[in-house]
């Protein structure tokens, strides 16, 4: 059995195994060691440190993720690294996994992000570390499961597997308002997932109750009406999960109350990924339905402007970031539903960028909180003199967030808008106004934190980024510029999967020459 056949199950199961190991063997190290000590000396003190163990598992996972990246062949269409094992034979559910150019970047991003985020927040969680580590690993497994599942039941399981650890992470290690935030998050998400579960069950029955496999279900010939209902269920689940306006209000609270690593994971765009992977190809007629398209596209543009405008008046850095995320989500949705090669690749690009840039920003907000107990903008000022490295990283990440050319943020946003303009010029123009509002919220936050006089005297003693945190931020900085200047390794890998998606949903490749005339009814769900 070649590596390409076991790598995905390994990616899925390894964190789960790791979670058990960490829970059973990991030692609690409640008293924080000295601020800058490296984690490697922990093993000598009887039993492994739970955090070190967790980090070890995540590093192995990241190596596996990189292997998957290397194994991927950008020129081959369809699923790669496929695995198909018997799971629940009575049901027809199988452990079916595979990746394509849309899931691969998300998968690799997740595996790389988790150890970095843990390292950057090393000192921020100090209680019940074995449980914490185990939950983080279970969460990782859930995320990986979402990105590699081709079987809808497996996908659903992974989808819920994300929810539970996240619930605990917010509920146990969160801040004062954590309970309300956690429950709101779970209630809303559960509501969506149940709808999705019902839709999956319906699809299963329509498919003859023998299979949950995406490829099989794609063969189904569904009437427009059925498609509309099922799509609505899926869409609602994913829209809530990805915090599309008007289902977005849980996100700022959850990201504010969660420990920083939780906020980072909540920023991963699993919802829009699932939309691209399942909802859109399964129900092309619904996606191309005039009303559905109009509603979603208009909602996306509203989200872009709404999120950006509300971000302008937020008092806390993390709330600014949450509303900025809501604005970004609008760009992603717009790109997905504009359905051109450029807009879809741009959407996936933003999903990846968001995982890099917004994570970096949340980690930076976490550093502020770690040092001063708050990230309220008016509690700071003049930090650029005190913590220049922090200032450089914050500025760079903010510039990436608002899509400055030369950073990763620009590539995604530009491709989405350019691609959208081809089919929806008016909406694209409205969406483009988002770049103006984005500069307002980003520069406001930068200025409040970094510039003006050093009003709060205690801030003069603030520690700059050092050691682990500096190293992690360095990685993020390199990624932001690299993907901004040379995104083609990523774009090249997305190309086939994105064009296949556009072709499947639109029924045509919508090549450049046909842009003006391409209006597709989407009735040919049967190809």
């Amino acid at each position, binding site marked *: 059995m070649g590596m390409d056949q076991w790598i995905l199950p390994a990616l899925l199961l390894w964190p789960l195994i790791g979670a058990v190991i960490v829970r059973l063997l990991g030692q609690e190290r409640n008293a924080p060691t000295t601020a800058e000590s490296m984690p490697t000396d922990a093993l000598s003190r009887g039993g492994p440190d739970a955090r070190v163990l967790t980090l070890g598992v995540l590093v192995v996972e990241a190596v596996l993720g990189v292997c998957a990246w290397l194994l991927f062949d950008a020129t081959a269409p369809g699923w790669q690294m496929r695995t198909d094992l018997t799971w629940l034979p009575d*049901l027809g*559910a199988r452990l079916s996994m595979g990746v394509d150019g849309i899931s691969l970047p998300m998968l690799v991003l997740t595996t790389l992000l988790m150890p970095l985020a843990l390292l950057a927040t090393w000192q921020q969680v100090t209680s019940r570390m074995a449980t914490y580590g185990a939950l983080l690993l279970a969460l990782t497994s859930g995320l990986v499961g979402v990105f590699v599942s081709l079987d809808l039941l497996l996908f659903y399981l992974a989808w819920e597997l994300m929810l*539970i650890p996240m*619930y605990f992470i917010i509920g146990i290690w969160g801040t004062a308002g954590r*309970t309300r935030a956690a429950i709101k998050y779970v209630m809303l998400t559960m509501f969506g997932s149940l709808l999705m579960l019902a839709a999956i069950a319906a699809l299963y029955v329509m498919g003859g109750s023998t299979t949950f496999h995406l490829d099989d279900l794609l063969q189904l010939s569904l009437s427009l009406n059925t498609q509309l209902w099922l799509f609505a269920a899926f869409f609602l689940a994913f829209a809530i999960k990805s915090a599309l306006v008007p289902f977005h209000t*849980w996100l700022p609270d959850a990201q504010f109350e969660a420990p920083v690593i939780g906020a980072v994971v909540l920023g991963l765009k699993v919802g829009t990924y699932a939309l691209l992977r399942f909802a859109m190809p399964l129900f092309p007629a619904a996606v191309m339905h005039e009303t559905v398209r109009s509603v979603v596209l208009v909602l996306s543009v509203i989200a872009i402007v709404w999120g950006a405008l*509300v971000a302008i008046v937020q008092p806390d850095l993390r709330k600014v970031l949450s509303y900025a995320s809501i604005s970004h989500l609008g760009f992603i949705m717009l790109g997905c539903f504009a359905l051109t090669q450029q807009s879809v690749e741009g959407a996936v690009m933003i999903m990846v960028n968001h995982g890099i840039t917004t994570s970096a920003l949340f980690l930076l907000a976490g550093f502020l909180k770690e040092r001063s107990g708050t990230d309220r903008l008016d509690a700071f000022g003049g930090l650029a003199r005190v913590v220049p490295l922090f200032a450089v990283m914050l500025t760079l990440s903010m510039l990436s967030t608002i899509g400055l050319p030369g950073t990763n943020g620009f590539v995604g946003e530009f491709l989405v808008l350019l691609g959208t303009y081809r089919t929806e010029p008016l909406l694209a123009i409205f969406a483009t106004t988002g770049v103006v509002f984005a500069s307002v919220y980003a520069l406001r936050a930068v200025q409040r934190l970094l510039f003006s006089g050093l009003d709060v005297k205690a801030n003069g003693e603030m520690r700059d980024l050092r050691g682990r945190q500096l190293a992690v931020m360095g990685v993020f900085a390199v990624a932001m510029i690299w993907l901004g200047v040379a995104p083609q390794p990523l774009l090249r890998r997305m190309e086939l999967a994105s064009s296949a998606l556009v072709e499947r949903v639109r029924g045509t490749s919508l090549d450049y020459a046909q842009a003006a005339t391409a209006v597709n009814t989407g009735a040919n769900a049967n190809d």
Partner: protein
Amino acid sequence: MMAAFIMHAAAGVAANLQSEVAHPLNGTVAEWVWLLPLLPLLGAIVNGSLVLWPRLSPGSGAQGNLATREESAVSRQAATKWITTLVGPGVMLLAFALALATFFAMQGVSGLTDPFIRTYASWMPVGALVIDWGIQLDQLSMLMTLVITGVGFLIHLFSVGYMSADEGYSRYFAYLNLFVAAMLVLVLGSSYAVMFVGWEGVGLASYLLIGFWFSETANADAGKKAFIVNRIGDFGFLVAMFLLFSTTGALDYVSAHAGMATAAPGVFTAVALFLFLGCAGKSAQLPLYIWLPDAMAGPTPVSALIHAATMVTAGVYLVARAAPVFAGAPDVSLFIALIGALTALFAATVALRQWDIKKVLAYSTVSQLGYMFIAVGTGAYAAGVFHLVTHAFFKALLFLGAGAVIHAMHAAYHHSHEHGQDAQDLRNMGGLRRFLPVTSLTMWIATLAIAGVPPLAGFFSKDEILAAVFARAQGSPLASASVFGIPGSALLYLIYGLGIVTALLTAIYMTRMMLLAFSGENRTGAKAAQGLHEAPRIMTGPMLVLALLTIAGGWLNLPELIPLGPAHLLSDWLEPVTGSATLLLGGGAHLSHGTELVLIGLAVAIALIGIAIAFVRFRGPTPNKDNAAPEHGLSALLSDAYRVDSGLDRTVVRPIAAFSNNVLWQGLDQRLDRAFVSGGNLISRMAGQAHDALGSGDVGRYAWVIALGVLAVLAAFTLT
């Protein structure tokens, strides 16, 4: 890192010369043109590292408190300062030398009609979209490069003196080098997309440099305002690119312009309008000029380089670069010329009543940019670029001179311990000629040039613009176009008239500024005046060079009528780039030598009258700032710049903030949230005891319920 990447890519391309057609510049020094933006980028990286490096290495006192940190920073500065002094201006000198060599290579080959294009790496290849990291070297980008690296080098030199006592010395040069790198990307890029990288890149550098002394909130605010207003323009640039791509399937100049040949007239109009929105932002035209006066918060050499000589002219460059697009939309072109003329007049009136020496120059820049848009709007692209070049000389000189004055004023107030005094207010100056003779002399040369006194550079370039407008009013395609129902011919005469009035005002406000600063009694105060002194040679040297260029710059493009040398050098040079577009808009326009002589006479007379008016009006004694009477009526309105800023604040800025806060956030967002929560509670209440878990906050139990629920669902499926 970026540098390493590009170098690597460049090496890769050098190995396989692709399918480049035989170009006369193949194998010449032009092959090294990719080094041009890279050299200042390298400088920025080195200088930036000098700032950050001490922070990266542990045990350098970074753990101590602020006081000891700053102490060690001072001692470090002494050690690193000479590296910055060497690297900052050094990379500029190298870039200028390379630019000159490239220029001579271009001069050396004949039949240079096609641009020299090199692509180094693919940037965003997506489906039909092809965007490469590529450079386009042609007569226009070459000229811009010479100005940017040449004037840029001089201003870097000046900065060595001006900033020498600043604790942010290395940071300053890092930003300044970064700016030049971005500016060179802007003019050398081979596509609109790459130009946009430079376009926003210079905006970033400008933001960083305006807010360079960020401890003052006002400075940081000014930087923020500049960036945001520019982004409104960038919105237009972006939409124009989307339109171009959806019409032509390309964004590189050659293919996009070729593709536009078959586009509908409406497309030309739309692309041109959106592009011009970008130009209005970057080049401070009505109504987006509002950021430029505030941008004076930055160090004065920055104002010279970015906010006078180079960045603010990027909009003019864009119109010239996209001439094939603009020439296809004569109505938009006329509109641009009209906006330019109105901006020129508007800003000139404001400049009449400014007391801050830099504000006079800022509004003057806005006004002169208006002239450039008159030119490119009427299809006189070469004339617009000519004025861009001469303006770069004399306005950079004026700003550097103002820098020398402010430098001296600061030293004076430092000497007398009057740190609260305004070192930039003309009312606190007076009689500075005695203390700063070189500055006074060079600034007077620049003043006469901008006022339009022959044979200085500004005279020729301004005259060429006004002559072109006058000529096009009859018999040109523009004359038969119309804007808002007004025939082009009438509009062009109106624009000419506005241009003449502005010329008069220019002569007045510039002479006023010079008289207030350099003539009459000194008003700095007896004790402070002892501290007034001429700037060091590292500062006066660049000013003298710019003064020479201000005198000689007119020879770049002499009219036939004045037989002082070969005529039309610059127009001929630019002919391959903008020639056909010029014909499209201005073809058929002709001036008899008699008319041209009359126009020249009128222009000279206007300049002299303006200077005379100022001498009569502003020669007398002026009260010190502290003793100045409050202004009333029109002068107050003018010195407040028509109160546009406060008006915008009331009508745009605050309403948007209030809407975001009260309606979107507190209103809709929070209400939605409450609705979801109460809806959720309702559902859970219906679900029975789950509500208890919610109410008691026992999070663990609730989550286990979910987990069990999932398992139950799975089990249910398994059993069926």
